[in-house]
C-alpha cells in the first residue's frame, strides 16, 4: 500500500495494492487511520488500480474509513475500480454512498 499526501489540496491518496480481504484489512485499517489522524485530510482518494479482489471484509474497511473522514467533514472517493470489484460494491450499496471516478486525475479535478 502506498500513501501519498498532496499538501495544497489536503488530499490523501491511498493506493491499495493487494487482495482486499479479511487478512489484509487489519493492516490497511491501521495504516490509513494513522495517516488520517496525523494529516486530517479534506479529501481521501482510494485508488483501487491494484485491487484485483475484494470481499465483504473490504467493504467494511472502506465504509469504516469513509465514515471517519465524513465525521471530520471530509470526503472520500474511489478511483480505478475494476469490474469484478465493482460488483461487490454495488451489491453492498457502497456505490450509492461513495462517489467513483474513472481515474485519479478526474477525481482530483472534481472533488
Amino acid at each position: 500500500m502506498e500513501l501519498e499526501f498532496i499538501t495544497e489540496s489536503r488530499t490523501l491518496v491511498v493506493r491499495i495494492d493487494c487482495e482486499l480481504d479479511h487478512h489484509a484489512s487489519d493492516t490497511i485499517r491501521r495504516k490509513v487511520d494513522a495517516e488520517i489522524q496525523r494529516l486530517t485530510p479534506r479529501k481521501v482518494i482510494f485508488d483501487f488500480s491494484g485491487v484485483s479482489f475484494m470481499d465483504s471484509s473490504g467493504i467494511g474497511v472502506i465504509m469504516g474509513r469513509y465514515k471517519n473522514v465524513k465525521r471530520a467533514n471530509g470526503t472520500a472517493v474511489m478511483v480505478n475500480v475494476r469490474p469484478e470489484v465493482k460488483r461487490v460494491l454495488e451489491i453492498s450499496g457502497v456505490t450509492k454512498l461513495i462517489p467513483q471516478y474513472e481515474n485519479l486525475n478526474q477525481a482530483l479535478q472534481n472533488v
Partner: protein
Amino acid sequence: MQYENEMRLEFLSKSSNEAFARVAVAAFASQLDPTIEEIADIKTAVSEAVTNSIIHGYENRMGYIKIFAGIIGSTVEIEISDSGKGIENIELAMQPLYTSKPELERSGMGFTIMENFMDSLEVESAPETGTKICMRKTIGAERNAQQP
C-alpha cells in the same frame, strides 16, 4: 451423489489461508471453463464462507476448516465446514447488513454476497458443533441461456 470429479482441502483457521482457499477452489472449478466473472464469483463466495468460519466460527482461535468441491456436469458444488461455535439464528445471520460483530467493522454482507454470486446456498449449523455451507454454481448458465 455421483460426482465426476472431487477435491478436499483441510487447513487451519488462519486469515493467511483465505487467499489460498479461494484460489484453490477457483483453480479446481476452472476445468469447467468459467468466464473471468464466474471465477471472481466463486472466489468471493469461498472467501466469505472461510472468513465467517475464522471470525465467527472459531472467533480467531485455531481450528480446522474443511472444503469439499465436486463437479457434476457443468455445476460445481462447494461445501465449506468448520467445527466452531455455530450460528444461533441462521435467518438473522443471513439478513443483509446484519452482523454480530459491528465492533470489528464487519459489513454484514457475507451471506448476501454468497447468495448473489452463487446459484444456490444452504446453511446448516448447530450451536457448539459447527457450521456447514453448501453452494452450487452452474458454469456457462448465462451463456447457454443466451443461445437461441
